């Protein structure tokens, strides 16, 4: 149905990659548009109730829906249409050439009995809708998938306490793999997810793992009724478009992962998405074994988000390469940008992060906790620290390379109190900032940092172009501190802070500046 395209991509130097990225991504969007158009050629519609499904929210339809999918996949494919009503179900497996179409008012309602879900032995996770090694599949329509994960997860907790399910109950919650997601597709090709609302899973929400050609358009995600409720997880996929979508999630919103050291998550377009999170907005990682390459993220809005609007982690041996983020509005979000190389589970692989452009950003950082009042708020940290700056932090010998920050304005609250937490600019104080290679990467991980706008360490070629940093109240720290940065450049840096006309706002330590 779809002509496979081999992505021809040559390594580039400096920011030539952007031009190539743009043309590549145009091709990708066109290709995936073709995928969706060819779906409208899936002619035949079948009504789920014709197979005996009872949309009363009480009768369990698992077997019936599966029977319908099995029939359609062996009879030329088509859409299994759910007319308005509530279809209670446990685990079903979507098969090739079958699209689940949820009419407006149709709800696929997850059973709250954990035993109604399968933990797939190959995938190792539980889900309401699985697809494994299938082609030309989708979930469309303006109906809803409602996992009711709060109840399912707590029923699982009860089963564990009763001793009938084994689980260490780490942090007093069942392992993520022992709670059903709404959707988990693995090693599938040509996937369309369009229009639907995905609500309340018991674990992550929707995972696309080692899939090729994934097109996500105009979905809504309401995902904050249990721990680890992500927005969307894209793991080691090739050829992804996510656009026009809204996410409200307890955990990371747009989350790209790389579980397999021999795979990579690549050729991804994200456009026109809005997200809210008690973790991060756009995230690469945390699991980052293979890496992330060729991303074009445009026009995203992040609000009321606890941690970072944009955070890329290369902490498990993977790479982050050729990334363009263009057009970000981030309001009431705890941190704006955090780029990190670490050494958590690298297993001998050399992590790298290079060729990252982040431009056209307006951001406001609040003085208070940004996600207060949302269900499953992010965990309060016991850290004496003032408001953290954005960070670009590599490891000694593993610098983050060639990052351009262009047309950016960040408004910070300022007003750091040195009696509460203080990190000065002496060599001893700067060196006292721990490297923490094996730590979980968070913008807040180093506790108090010596800058209020940007903290840069172990990097090469960091370019500030037309960057405005505003502190609304007086700060004891400078705006920017660079430590072990080779080739930092400033082109129109504007720092605004009350009563600080003669304050030196850029502090370089073991670093070299290049003039533009």
């Amino acid at each position: 149905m779809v002509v496979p395209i081999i992505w021809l991509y040559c390594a580039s130097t400096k920011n030539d990659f952007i031009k190539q990225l743009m043309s590549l991504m145009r091709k990708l969007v066109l290709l995936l548009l073709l995928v969706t158009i060819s779906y409208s050629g899936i002619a035949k519609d079948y009504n789920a109730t014709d197979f005996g499904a009872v949309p009363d929210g009480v009768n369990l339809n698992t077997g019936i829906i599966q029977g319908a999918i099995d029939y359609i996949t062996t009879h030329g494919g088509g859409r299994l249409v759910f007319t308005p009503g509530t279809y209670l179900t446990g685990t079903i497996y979507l098969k090739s050439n079958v699209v689940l179409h949820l009419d407006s008012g149709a709800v696929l309602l997850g059973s709250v009995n954990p035993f109604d879900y399968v933990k797939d032995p190959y995938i190792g996770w539980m889900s309401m809708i699985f697809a494994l090694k299938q082609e030309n599949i989708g979930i469309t329509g303006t109906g809803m998938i409602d996992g009711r994960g709060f109840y399912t997860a707590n029923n699982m907790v009860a089963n564990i306490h009763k001793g009938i399910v084994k689980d260490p109950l780490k942090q007093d919650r069942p392992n993520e793999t022992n709670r059903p997601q709404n959707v988990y597709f693995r090693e599938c090709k040509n996937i369309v997810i369009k229009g639907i609302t995905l609500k309340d899973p018991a674990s992550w929400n929707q995972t696309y793992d080692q899939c090729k050609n994934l097109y996500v358009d105009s979905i809504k995600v309401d995902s904050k009724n249990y721990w680890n409720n992500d927005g969307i997880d894209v793991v080691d996929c090739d050829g992804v478009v996510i656009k026009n979508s809204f996410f409200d999630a307890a955990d990371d919103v747009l989350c790209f992962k790389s579980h397999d050291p021999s795979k990579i998550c690549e050729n991804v377009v994200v456009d026109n998405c809005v997200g809210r999170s008690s973790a991060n907005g756009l995230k690469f990682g945390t699991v980052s074994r293979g890496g992330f390459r060729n991303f074009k993220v445009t026009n995203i809005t992040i609000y009321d988000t606890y941690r970072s609007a944009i955070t890329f982690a290369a902490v498990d041996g993977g790479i982050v390469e050729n990334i363009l983020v263009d057009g970000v509005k981030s309001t009431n979000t705890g941190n704006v940008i955090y780029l990190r190389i670490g050494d958590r589970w690298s297993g001998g692989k050399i992590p790298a992060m290079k060729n990252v452009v982040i431009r056209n950003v307006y951001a406001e950082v609040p003085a208070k906790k940004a996600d207060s009042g949302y269900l499953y708020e992010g965990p309060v940290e016991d850290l004496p620290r003032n408001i953290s700056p954005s960070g670009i932090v590599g490891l000694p010998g593993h610098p983050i390379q060639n990052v351009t920050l262009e047309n950016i304005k960040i408004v910070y609250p300022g007003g750091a109190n040195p009696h509460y937490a203080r990190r000065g600019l002496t060599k001893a104080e700067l060196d006292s900032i721990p490297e923490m290679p094996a730590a979980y990467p968070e913008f807040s991980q180093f506790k108090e940092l010596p800058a209020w706008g940007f903290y840069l360490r172990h990097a090469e070629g960091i370019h500030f172009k037309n960057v405005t940093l505003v502190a609304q109240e007086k700060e004891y720290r400078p705006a920017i501190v660079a430590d072990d940065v080779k080739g930092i450049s400033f082109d129109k840096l504007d720092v605004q802070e009350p009563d600080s006309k003669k304050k030196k706002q850029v502090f370089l330590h073991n670093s070299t500046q290049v003039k533009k």
Partner: protein
Amino acid sequence: MNFFKIILIAFVLPFSAPAKDYNASLFGAKSDGLTLNTRSIQKGIDYISENGGGTLVFHVGRYLTGSIQLKSNVSIKLEEGAVLVGSGSIYDYNSSGSIKAIICADGQQHIGISGKGVIEGRSALLLDNMTRLKEKGFLLDSLMQTPALLGFSNCTNLSIDSVNLWDAAGAVQVFRKCTEVKIDRVTIKSKNAKDAGNIFMDNTRVRFLNSYVEVPGKALQWSGVPGEIKIEGSVDKKGSILQPE
């Protein structure tokens, strides 16, 4: 000497202790007649089998289920008033083993069904569901077989005691290559489904004791290779002693 006796008893006791009882609700089964309990009941059977065997006990109530597979050293006990109700959708029997049935088992040992409760096939509902799917052409060949109430293959030491078996859509009981089968004090009333309601035996050694069987046609039939049957005190609705054919 007493000391050694105590030691001996301490060692023997755990092994000779009667098999443990587990309530169906432990595994989340609901007795409302509406909740489909297939996977909770299956989890109960699997758990009991993996933990030294025992009995899964259903107290009064209606327990809707699709096909479940019995495992070695597990018995199902239906207390008086407990009804295991077969699902009205043929798709809920895809979890069957080699013989399609509400309760089935293949290659298991020391298994049983007991108690004064009921296993009910709801033939009219299920056959109607199959007819409607057939008319639409949606019924795959693999689904054409109507489910029995009980279906066992390659099992030994199988006991069916006291239960009431009602209204099968397919056969009441099917036994294939089973030995040491004992059916005792069972009441069978299954007459709604055409061409159904029988007990089919293939190469099986069975004792059929003290039971009442009300089905259309001949109750006991050899299918395939005849085995051995011992019948005592078992009659049909006219009071005639049952005979296999």
